Protein backbone atom coordinates (compact mmCIF):
# COMPACT_ATOMS: atom_id res chain seq x y z
CA UNK A 1 0.00 0.00 0.00
CA UNK A 2 1.40 3.40 -0.95
CA UNK A 3 1.24 6.38 1.41
CA UNK A 4 -1.46 7.95 -0.76
CA UNK A 5 -3.66 4.86 -0.46
CA UNK A 6 -3.05 4.80 3.29
CA UNK A 7 -4.14 8.44 3.58
CA UNK A 8 -7.19 7.93 1.35
CA UNK A 9 -5.83 10.27 -1.30
CA UNK A 10 -7.02 8.00 -4.08
CA UNK A 11 -10.43 9.73 -3.85
CA UNK A 12 -8.78 13.10 -4.40
CA UNK A 13 -6.97 11.72 -7.44
CA UNK A 14 -10.20 10.37 -8.91
CA UNK A 15 -11.92 13.72 -8.39
CA UNK A 16 -9.00 15.47 -10.05
CA UNK A 17 -9.17 13.08 -12.98
CA UNK A 18 -12.85 13.93 -13.50
CA UNK A 19 -12.01 17.63 -13.49
CA UNK A 20 -9.08 17.25 -15.89
CA UNK A 21 -6.30 17.90 -13.35
CA UNK A 22 -2.77 16.64 -13.98
CA UNK A 23 0.59 16.46 -12.24
CA UNK A 24 3.23 18.83 -13.60
CA UNK A 25 6.15 17.41 -15.57
CA UNK A 26 8.48 20.36 -14.97
CA UNK A 27 8.58 21.20 -18.68
CA UNK A 28 9.79 24.72 -19.41
CA UNK A 29 7.99 26.65 -22.15
CA UNK A 30 9.77 30.01 -21.92
CA UNK A 31 9.16 33.23 -20.07
CA UNK A 32 6.07 35.36 -20.71
CA UNK A 33 7.33 38.93 -20.75
CA UNK A 34 5.23 41.61 -19.09
CA UNK A 35 5.97 44.84 -17.27
CA UNK A 36 4.79 43.57 -13.95
CA UNK A 37 7.58 41.47 -12.49
CA UNK A 38 11.30 40.92 -12.43
CA UNK A 39 12.94 38.34 -14.69
CA UNK A 40 13.83 35.96 -11.90
CA UNK A 41 10.22 35.88 -10.79
CA UNK A 42 9.10 35.15 -14.35
CA UNK A 43 11.64 32.39 -14.63
CA UNK A 44 10.37 30.53 -11.61
CA UNK A 45 6.72 31.45 -11.61
CA UNK A 46 5.47 31.09 -15.12
CA UNK A 47 8.06 29.76 -17.52
CA UNK A 48 6.42 26.35 -17.12
CA UNK A 49 3.09 27.46 -18.56
CA UNK A 50 2.12 26.04 -21.90
CA UNK A 51 0.98 28.97 -24.06
CA UNK A 52 -2.52 28.88 -25.55
CA UNK A 53 -2.62 27.51 -29.06
CA UNK A 54 -4.17 29.63 -31.79
CA UNK A 55 -7.45 27.75 -31.79
CA UNK A 56 -8.00 28.20 -28.04
CA UNK A 57 -6.91 31.81 -28.24
CA UNK A 58 -9.56 32.45 -30.91
CA UNK A 59 -12.25 30.56 -28.99
CA UNK A 60 -11.61 32.47 -25.77
CA UNK A 61 -11.41 35.75 -27.68
CA UNK A 62 -14.81 35.21 -29.30
CA UNK A 63 -16.40 33.69 -26.21
CA UNK A 64 -14.72 34.97 -23.01
CA UNK A 65 -17.34 33.16 -20.92
CA UNK A 66 -15.44 30.00 -21.94
CA UNK A 67 -12.23 31.51 -20.60
CA UNK A 68 -14.01 32.36 -17.35
CA UNK A 69 -15.23 28.74 -17.11
CA UNK A 70 -11.70 27.48 -17.83
CA UNK A 71 -10.26 29.63 -15.03
CA UNK A 72 -13.03 28.65 -12.63
CA UNK A 73 -12.42 24.97 -13.39
CA UNK A 74 -8.69 25.48 -12.76
CA UNK A 75 -9.48 26.96 -9.36
CA UNK A 76 -11.64 23.92 -8.52
CA UNK A 77 -8.69 21.71 -9.48
CA UNK A 78 -6.41 23.85 -7.30
CA UNK A 79 -8.80 23.30 -4.37
CA UNK A 80 -8.65 19.50 -4.77
CA UNK A 81 -4.88 19.60 -5.16
CA UNK A 82 -4.66 21.71 -1.98
CA UNK A 83 -6.69 19.05 -0.13
CA UNK A 84 -4.31 16.30 -1.24
CA UNK A 85 -1.32 18.47 -0.33
CA UNK A 86 -2.72 19.12 3.17
CA UNK A 87 -3.25 15.36 3.66
CA UNK A 88 0.35 14.59 2.72
CA UNK A 89 1.50 17.54 4.80
CA UNK A 90 -0.21 16.16 7.90
CA UNK A 91 2.22 13.22 7.97
CA UNK A 92 5.50 15.07 7.46
CA UNK A 93 6.11 15.78 11.13
CA UNK A 94 4.04 12.84 12.44
CA UNK A 95 6.46 10.36 13.96
CA UNK A 96 3.94 7.53 13.87
CA UNK A 97 4.76 7.33 10.15
CA UNK A 98 8.03 5.78 9.02
CA UNK A 99 10.91 8.02 7.94
CA UNK A 100 10.45 6.75 4.38
CA UNK A 101 6.76 7.69 4.39
CA UNK A 102 7.54 11.11 5.78
CA UNK A 103 10.13 11.66 3.03
CA UNK A 104 7.51 10.58 0.47
CA UNK A 105 4.96 12.99 1.93
CA UNK A 106 7.53 15.80 1.89
CA UNK A 107 8.38 15.21 -1.77
CA UNK A 108 4.72 14.89 -2.76
CA UNK A 109 3.98 18.22 -1.07
CA UNK A 110 6.78 19.74 -3.16
CA UNK A 111 5.49 18.16 -6.37
CA UNK A 112 1.94 19.26 -5.63
CA UNK A 113 3.14 22.78 -4.78
CA UNK A 114 4.66 23.07 -8.23
CA UNK A 115 1.57 21.53 -9.83
CA UNK A 116 -0.85 23.82 -7.98
CA UNK A 117 1.00 26.98 -8.95
CA UNK A 118 1.18 25.85 -12.59
CA UNK A 119 -2.54 25.07 -12.64
CA UNK A 120 -3.29 28.49 -11.19
CA UNK A 121 -0.93 30.35 -13.53
CA UNK A 122 -2.51 28.63 -16.54
CA UNK A 123 -5.21 31.27 -16.49
CA UNK A 124 -3.83 33.87 -14.09
CA UNK A 125 -0.93 34.94 -16.30
CA UNK A 126 -3.33 35.44 -19.19
CA UNK A 127 -5.38 37.79 -17.04
CA UNK A 128 -2.32 40.02 -16.78
CA UNK A 129 -0.79 39.63 -20.22
CA UNK A 130 -2.12 42.16 -22.66
CA UNK A 131 -0.11 40.91 -25.68
CA UNK A 132 -2.64 40.12 -28.42
CA UNK A 133 -0.56 37.22 -29.73
CA UNK A 134 -0.64 35.51 -26.34
CA UNK A 135 -3.93 36.13 -24.62
CA UNK A 136 -7.64 36.58 -25.39
CA UNK A 137 -7.60 39.63 -23.14
CA UNK A 138 -4.77 41.05 -25.27
CA UNK A 139 -6.83 40.70 -28.45
CA UNK A 140 -9.82 42.39 -26.85
CA UNK A 141 -7.64 45.17 -25.43
CA UNK A 142 -6.13 45.69 -28.88
CA UNK A 143 -9.61 46.06 -30.43
CA UNK A 144 -10.50 48.74 -27.87
CA UNK A 145 -7.16 50.49 -28.26
CA UNK A 146 -7.39 50.60 -32.07
CA UNK A 147 -10.88 52.10 -32.04
CA UNK A 148 -10.07 54.71 -29.36
CA UNK A 149 -6.91 55.52 -31.34
CA UNK A 150 -9.01 56.15 -34.47
CA UNK A 151 -11.19 58.62 -32.57
CA UNK A 152 -8.15 60.34 -31.03
CA UNK A 153 -6.59 60.83 -34.48
CA UNK A 154 -9.84 62.00 -36.00
CA UNK A 155 -10.47 64.58 -33.28
CA UNK A 156 -6.83 65.44 -32.55
CA UNK A 157 -7.07 64.28 -28.94
CA UNK A 158 -3.91 63.73 -26.86
CA UNK A 159 -2.28 60.45 -25.84
CA UNK A 160 -3.38 61.20 -22.28
CA UNK A 161 -7.02 61.43 -23.41
CA UNK A 162 -6.63 58.08 -25.10
CA UNK A 163 -5.12 56.39 -22.01
CA UNK A 164 -7.81 57.89 -19.81
CA UNK A 165 -10.64 56.61 -22.00
CA UNK A 166 -9.15 53.12 -22.35
CA UNK A 167 -8.73 52.96 -18.59
CA UNK A 168 -12.35 54.03 -18.11
CA UNK A 169 -13.60 51.35 -20.49
CA UNK A 170 -11.44 48.66 -18.88
CA UNK A 171 -12.86 49.54 -15.47
CA UNK A 172 -16.30 48.32 -16.68
CA UNK A 173 -18.40 50.55 -14.40
CA UNK A 174 -21.61 48.89 -15.60
CA UNK A 175 -20.40 45.67 -14.07
CA UNK A 176 -19.89 46.03 -10.32
CA UNK A 177 -17.06 43.99 -8.82
CA UNK A 178 -17.63 40.33 -8.00
CA UNK A 179 -16.89 40.88 -4.30
CA UNK A 180 -19.15 43.93 -4.00
CA UNK A 181 -22.05 42.24 -5.81
CA UNK A 182 -21.74 39.22 -3.58
CA UNK A 183 -21.56 41.28 -0.37
CA UNK A 184 -24.38 43.55 -1.44
CA UNK A 185 -26.72 40.59 -2.01
CA UNK A 186 -25.69 38.97 1.28
CA UNK A 187 -26.24 42.22 3.22
CA UNK A 188 -29.71 42.55 1.68
CA UNK A 189 -30.58 39.00 2.66
CA UNK A 190 -29.39 39.61 6.23
CA UNK A 191 -31.90 42.42 6.60
CA UNK A 192 -34.59 39.73 6.40
CA UNK A 193 -32.92 37.47 8.98
CA UNK A 194 -31.88 39.51 12.05
CA UNK A 195 -30.68 36.50 14.09
CA UNK A 196 -28.24 35.50 11.34
CA UNK A 197 -27.15 39.12 10.98
CA UNK A 198 -26.55 39.25 14.71
CA UNK A 199 -24.48 36.04 14.70
CA UNK A 200 -22.34 37.31 11.84
CA UNK A 201 -21.84 40.68 13.48
CA UNK A 202 -20.50 38.82 16.51
CA UNK A 203 -18.25 36.73 14.25
CA UNK A 204 -19.98 33.49 15.27
CA UNK A 205 -19.39 31.25 12.24
CA UNK A 206 -20.70 28.02 13.70
CA UNK A 207 -23.86 29.62 15.04
CA UNK A 208 -24.48 31.29 11.67
CA UNK A 209 -24.08 27.98 9.84
CA UNK A 210 -26.40 26.19 12.25
CA UNK A 211 -29.06 28.91 11.85
CA UNK A 212 -28.85 28.48 8.08
CA UNK A 213 -29.10 24.69 8.41
CA UNK A 214 -32.20 24.89 10.58
CA UNK A 215 -34.20 27.28 8.40
CA UNK A 216 -34.96 25.76 4.98
CA UNK A 217 -36.15 29.04 3.43
CA UNK A 218 -33.01 30.85 4.59
CA UNK A 219 -30.91 27.88 3.45
CA UNK A 220 -32.39 28.03 -0.07
CA UNK A 221 -31.94 31.77 -0.32
CA UNK A 222 -28.35 31.79 0.86
CA UNK A 223 -27.51 28.76 -1.29
CA UNK A 224 -28.89 30.60 -4.31
CA UNK A 225 -26.49 33.51 -3.66
CA UNK A 226 -23.56 31.13 -3.03
CA UNK A 227 -24.30 29.21 -6.26
CA UNK A 228 -24.48 32.41 -8.24
CA UNK A 229 -20.94 33.24 -7.13
CA UNK A 230 -19.62 29.66 -7.48
CA UNK A 231 -19.10 29.30 -3.74
CA UNK A 232 -20.43 26.92 -1.12
CA UNK A 233 -22.28 28.28 1.92
CA UNK A 234 -19.31 28.11 4.38
CA UNK A 235 -17.10 29.93 1.83
CA UNK A 236 -19.76 32.59 1.36
CA UNK A 237 -19.95 33.12 5.14
CA UNK A 238 -16.15 33.24 5.31
CA UNK A 239 -16.02 35.77 2.47
CA UNK A 240 -18.59 37.89 4.27
CA UNK A 241 -16.82 37.76 7.62
CA UNK A 242 -13.34 38.41 6.29
CA UNK A 243 -14.38 41.37 4.14
CA UNK A 244 -15.70 43.60 6.97
CA UNK A 245 -17.32 45.89 4.39
CA UNK A 246 -20.43 47.69 5.55
CA UNK A 247 -23.61 48.38 3.62
CA UNK A 248 -22.69 52.10 3.76
CA UNK A 249 -19.34 51.39 2.06
CA UNK A 250 -21.15 49.42 -0.62
CA UNK A 251 -23.63 52.24 -1.26
CA UNK A 252 -20.74 54.70 -1.74
CA UNK A 253 -19.03 52.32 -4.15
CA UNK A 254 -22.24 51.93 -6.15
CA UNK A 255 -22.61 55.72 -6.41
CA UNK A 256 -19.02 55.99 -7.68
CA UNK A 257 -19.68 53.32 -10.25
CA UNK A 258 -22.90 54.94 -11.43
CA UNK A 259 -21.00 58.18 -12.10
CA UNK A 260 -18.41 56.30 -14.15
CA UNK A 261 -21.13 54.32 -15.95
CA UNK A 262 -22.62 57.63 -17.07
CA UNK A 263 -19.18 58.71 -18.35
CA UNK A 264 -18.97 55.49 -20.40
CA UNK A 265 -22.44 56.06 -21.80
CA UNK A 266 -21.59 59.59 -22.92
CA UNK A 267 -18.37 58.25 -24.42
CA UNK A 268 -20.35 55.75 -26.51
CA UNK A 269 -22.73 58.56 -27.41
CA UNK A 270 -19.80 60.72 -28.57
CA UNK A 271 -18.20 57.86 -30.52
CA UNK A 272 -21.32 56.62 -32.32
CA UNK A 273 -21.48 59.24 -35.10
CA UNK A 274 -17.69 59.10 -35.55
CA UNK A 275 -17.40 55.34 -36.13
CA UNK A 276 -18.76 53.02 -38.76
CA UNK A 277 -21.35 50.51 -37.55
CA UNK A 278 -18.84 47.63 -37.53
CA UNK A 279 -16.33 49.45 -35.28
CA UNK A 280 -19.02 50.79 -32.98
CA UNK A 281 -20.43 47.28 -32.53
CA UNK A 282 -16.95 45.86 -31.94
CA UNK A 283 -16.24 48.48 -29.28
CA UNK A 284 -19.49 47.72 -27.47
CA UNK A 285 -18.86 43.97 -27.66
CA UNK A 286 -15.28 44.35 -26.43
CA UNK A 287 -16.50 46.44 -23.51
CA UNK A 288 -18.93 43.66 -22.56
CA UNK A 289 -16.26 40.98 -22.99
CA UNK A 290 -13.95 42.55 -20.39
CA UNK A 291 -16.40 41.71 -17.59
CA UNK A 292 -15.53 38.00 -17.76
CA UNK A 293 -11.86 38.74 -17.14
CA UNK A 294 -12.74 41.14 -14.35
CA UNK A 295 -14.93 38.51 -12.66
CA UNK A 296 -12.35 35.77 -13.09
CA UNK A 297 -9.61 37.91 -11.60
CA UNK A 298 -11.66 38.54 -8.48
CA UNK A 299 -12.99 35.00 -8.29
CA UNK A 300 -9.41 33.71 -8.39
CA UNK A 301 -8.32 36.16 -5.69
CA UNK A 302 -11.27 35.01 -3.57
CA UNK A 303 -10.39 31.35 -3.91
CA UNK A 304 -6.78 32.06 -3.01
CA UNK A 305 -7.86 33.92 0.12
CA UNK A 306 -10.05 30.97 1.21
CA UNK A 307 -9.26 28.94 4.37
CA UNK A 308 -8.25 25.81 2.43
CA UNK A 309 -5.74 27.74 0.32
CA UNK A 310 -4.34 29.40 3.47
CA UNK A 311 -3.96 25.99 5.14
CA UNK A 312 -2.19 24.62 2.06
CA UNK A 313 0.11 27.65 2.12
CA UNK A 314 0.94 27.01 5.80
CA UNK A 315 1.84 23.43 4.90
CA UNK A 316 3.99 24.59 2.00
CA UNK A 317 5.84 27.00 4.28
CA UNK A 318 6.31 24.37 7.00
CA UNK A 319 8.04 21.90 4.65
CA UNK A 320 11.08 24.15 4.62
CA UNK A 321 11.70 23.15 8.24
CA UNK A 322 11.74 19.49 7.20
CA UNK A 323 14.21 20.24 4.42
CA UNK A 324 16.38 22.24 6.81
CA UNK A 325 16.35 19.49 9.43
CA UNK A 326 17.12 16.69 6.97
CA UNK A 327 19.13 18.47 4.29
CA UNK A 328 22.30 16.31 4.55
CA UNK A 329 20.23 13.12 4.47
CA UNK A 330 18.05 14.22 1.51
CA UNK A 331 20.40 16.11 -0.81
CA UNK A 332 23.47 14.82 -2.64
CA UNK A 333 26.61 16.10 -0.97
CA UNK A 334 27.81 18.15 -3.95
CA UNK A 335 24.53 20.16 -3.99
CA UNK A 336 24.07 20.75 -0.28
CA UNK A 337 25.77 24.17 -0.18
CA UNK A 338 23.68 25.45 -3.10
CA UNK A 339 20.38 24.22 -1.67
CA UNK A 340 21.28 25.61 1.73
CA UNK A 341 21.93 29.03 0.18
CA UNK A 342 18.63 28.96 -1.75
CA UNK A 343 16.86 27.92 1.42
CA UNK A 344 18.27 30.95 3.23
CA UNK A 345 17.12 33.22 0.39
CA UNK A 346 13.69 31.60 0.50
CA UNK A 347 13.44 32.16 4.26
CA UNK A 348 14.49 35.79 4.02
CA UNK A 349 11.78 36.36 1.38
CA UNK A 350 9.01 34.82 3.51
CA UNK A 351 7.95 38.03 5.35
CA UNK A 352 7.38 39.77 2.01
CA UNK A 353 4.70 37.38 0.82
CA UNK A 354 4.07 34.74 -1.81
CA UNK A 355 5.31 36.74 -4.79
CA UNK A 356 8.75 36.93 -3.22
CA UNK A 357 9.23 33.48 -1.75
CA UNK A 358 7.44 31.30 -4.32
CA UNK A 359 9.99 31.82 -7.10
CA UNK A 360 12.78 30.68 -4.78
CA UNK A 361 10.74 27.73 -3.55
CA UNK A 362 9.97 26.66 -7.11
CA UNK A 363 13.65 26.87 -7.95
CA UNK A 364 14.49 24.57 -5.01
CA UNK A 365 11.75 22.10 -6.00
CA UNK A 366 12.90 22.08 -9.62
CA UNK A 367 16.49 21.34 -8.66
CA UNK A 368 15.46 18.56 -6.28
CA UNK A 369 12.76 16.81 -8.29
CA UNK A 370 13.89 17.48 -11.85
CA UNK A 371 17.61 18.11 -11.80
CA UNK A 372 18.61 15.14 -9.65
CA UNK A 373 19.78 17.00 -6.53
CA UNK A 374 18.02 14.40 -4.34
CA UNK A 375 19.85 11.33 -3.15
CA UNK A 376 18.68 8.30 -5.15
CA UNK A 377 17.61 6.24 -2.11
CA UNK A 378 15.28 9.02 -0.91
CA UNK A 379 13.09 8.91 -4.02
CA UNK A 380 11.81 5.33 -3.63
CA UNK A 381 8.46 6.01 -1.98
CA UNK A 382 7.97 9.18 -4.01
CA UNK A 383 8.46 7.32 -7.31
CA UNK A 384 5.85 4.77 -6.24
CA UNK A 385 3.48 7.55 -5.26
CA UNK A 386 3.94 9.25 -8.62
CA UNK A 387 3.13 5.98 -10.38
CA UNK A 388 -0.13 5.84 -8.47
CA UNK A 389 -1.01 9.41 -9.44
CA UNK A 390 0.06 9.01 -13.06
CA UNK A 391 -1.92 5.77 -13.40
CA UNK A 392 -5.02 7.73 -12.45
CA UNK A 393 -4.56 11.20 -13.90
CA UNK A 394 -1.48 11.13 -16.11
Amino acid sequence: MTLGEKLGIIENIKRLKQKGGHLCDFVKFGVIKTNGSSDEIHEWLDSFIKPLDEEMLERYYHDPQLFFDFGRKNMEIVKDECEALIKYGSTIFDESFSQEERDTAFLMVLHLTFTITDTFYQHDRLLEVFSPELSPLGKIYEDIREIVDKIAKLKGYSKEWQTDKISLLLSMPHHLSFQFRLLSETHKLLEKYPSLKDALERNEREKALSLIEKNSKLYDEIRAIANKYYLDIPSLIEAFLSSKITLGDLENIKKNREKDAKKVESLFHEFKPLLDIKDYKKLKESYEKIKFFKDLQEFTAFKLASPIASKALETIISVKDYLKMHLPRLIKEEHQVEINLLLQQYESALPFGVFYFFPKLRQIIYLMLKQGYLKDEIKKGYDEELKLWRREIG
Partner: protein
Amino acid sequence: MVNKNMKKILSGIPASPGKAEGIAKTVFNPEEAINEITENDILVTPMTDPNFVVAMIKAKGIITDFGGMLCHAALVARELGKPCIVGTKNATKVIQNGQKILMDGTKGEIYIFEEENYDFR
Protein backbone atom coordinates in the same frame (compact mmCIF):
# COMPACT_ATOMS: atom_id res chain seq x y z
CA MET B 1 0.47 69.22 -7.78
CA VAL B 2 3.99 68.14 -8.67
CA ASN B 3 6.52 70.92 -7.92
CA LYS B 4 10.27 71.42 -7.90
CA ASN B 5 10.60 70.16 -4.34
CA MET B 6 9.48 66.77 -5.45
CA LYS B 7 11.55 64.01 -6.93
CA LYS B 8 10.24 61.15 -9.00
CA ILE B 9 11.41 57.93 -7.43
CA LEU B 10 9.42 55.23 -9.12
CA SER B 11 6.98 54.48 -11.88
CA GLY B 12 4.60 51.67 -12.69
CA ILE B 13 1.48 50.87 -14.66
CA PRO B 14 -1.17 53.57 -14.25
CA ALA B 15 -4.14 51.47 -13.15
CA SER B 16 -6.62 53.97 -11.73
CA PRO B 17 -6.49 57.71 -12.43
CA GLY B 18 -6.15 60.57 -9.95
CA LYS B 19 -3.53 62.05 -7.65
CA ALA B 20 -3.05 61.42 -3.94
CA GLU B 21 -0.64 62.82 -1.41
CA GLY B 22 -0.11 61.01 1.86
CA ILE B 23 2.03 58.91 4.14
CA ALA B 24 3.27 55.68 2.62
CA LYS B 25 2.44 52.59 4.66
CA THR B 26 4.23 49.47 3.51
CA VAL B 27 2.37 46.33 4.52
CA PHE B 28 2.73 42.68 3.58
CA ASN B 29 -0.50 41.06 4.69
CA PRO B 30 -4.18 42.00 5.13
CA GLU B 31 -4.07 41.99 8.95
CA GLU B 32 -1.23 44.50 8.95
CA ALA B 33 -3.10 46.56 6.35
CA ILE B 34 -6.35 46.63 8.32
CA ASN B 35 -4.59 47.53 11.57
CA GLU B 36 -2.18 50.13 10.25
CA ILE B 37 -3.79 51.97 7.36
CA THR B 38 -5.53 55.25 8.21
CA GLU B 39 -7.31 57.88 6.10
CA ASN B 40 -4.06 59.81 5.42
CA ASP B 41 -2.11 56.84 4.16
CA ILE B 42 -1.15 55.43 0.81
CA LEU B 43 -1.17 51.65 0.87
CA VAL B 44 2.04 50.12 -0.50
CA THR B 45 2.09 46.33 -0.78
CA PRO B 46 3.34 43.53 -3.07
CA MET B 47 -0.21 42.63 -4.16
CA THR B 48 -3.75 42.85 -2.78
CA ASP B 49 -6.50 40.26 -2.32
CA PRO B 50 -10.16 40.53 -1.19
CA ASN B 51 -9.08 40.69 2.46
CA PHE B 52 -7.28 43.99 1.78
CA VAL B 53 -10.44 45.77 0.66
CA VAL B 54 -11.30 47.37 4.02
CA ALA B 55 -7.80 48.89 4.11
CA MET B 56 -8.16 49.96 0.46
CA ILE B 57 -11.41 51.76 1.33
CA LYS B 58 -9.58 53.71 4.04
CA ALA B 59 -6.40 54.49 2.06
CA LYS B 60 -5.95 57.55 -0.17
CA GLY B 61 -4.28 55.50 -2.88
CA ILE B 62 -2.82 52.09 -3.65
CA ILE B 63 0.63 51.12 -4.95
CA THR B 64 1.71 47.53 -5.64
CA ASP B 65 4.91 45.76 -6.69
CA PHE B 66 3.16 43.33 -9.02
CA GLY B 67 0.16 43.08 -11.31
CA GLY B 68 -1.20 44.74 -14.43
CA MET B 69 -4.21 46.74 -15.62
CA LEU B 70 -6.62 44.01 -14.63
CA CYS B 71 -5.11 42.78 -11.36
CA HIS B 72 -7.13 42.73 -8.16
CA ALA B 73 -5.66 46.02 -6.87
CA ALA B 74 -6.40 47.82 -10.16
CA LEU B 75 -9.98 46.56 -10.36
CA VAL B 76 -10.87 47.43 -6.79
CA ALA B 77 -9.12 50.82 -6.83
CA ARG B 78 -11.12 51.85 -9.91
CA GLU B 79 -14.25 50.62 -8.19
CA LEU B 80 -13.42 52.77 -5.17
CA GLY B 81 -12.44 55.76 -7.33
CA LYS B 82 -8.92 55.87 -5.81
CA PRO B 83 -5.62 56.34 -7.64
CA CYS B 84 -3.66 53.17 -8.14
CA ILE B 85 -0.26 52.28 -9.60
CA VAL B 86 0.59 48.62 -10.09
CA GLY B 87 3.58 46.64 -11.36
CA THR B 88 6.20 48.99 -9.89
CA LYS B 89 8.40 45.92 -9.28
CA ASN B 90 9.88 47.23 -6.04
CA ALA B 91 7.73 49.91 -4.40
CA THR B 92 7.77 48.02 -1.09
CA LYS B 93 11.57 48.22 -1.14
CA VAL B 94 12.10 51.72 -2.54
CA ILE B 95 9.37 53.58 -0.63
CA GLN B 96 10.06 53.83 3.06
CA ASN B 97 7.38 53.30 5.62
CA GLY B 98 6.16 56.68 6.89
CA GLN B 99 7.57 58.61 3.94
CA LYS B 100 5.45 61.44 2.54
CA ILE B 101 4.73 60.74 -1.12
CA LEU B 102 2.65 61.95 -4.03
CA MET B 103 1.26 59.42 -6.46
CA ASP B 104 -0.13 60.15 -9.89
CA GLY B 105 -2.40 57.27 -10.90
CA THR B 106 -2.98 58.78 -14.34
CA LYS B 107 0.70 58.78 -15.28
CA GLY B 108 1.83 55.93 -13.04
CA GLU B 109 4.42 58.07 -11.27
CA ILE B 110 5.45 58.32 -7.62
CA TYR B 111 7.23 61.34 -6.10
CA ILE B 112 8.78 62.14 -2.75
CA PHE B 113 9.21 65.52 -1.11
CA GLU B 114 12.93 66.26 -1.45
CA GLU B 115 13.35 68.60 1.51
CA GLU B 116 12.72 65.74 3.88
CA ASN B 117 16.06 64.14 2.89
CA TYR B 118 15.13 60.54 3.11
CA ASP B 119 17.76 57.87 2.87
CA PHE B 120 16.87 55.75 -0.16
CA ARG B 121 17.92 52.19 -0.54
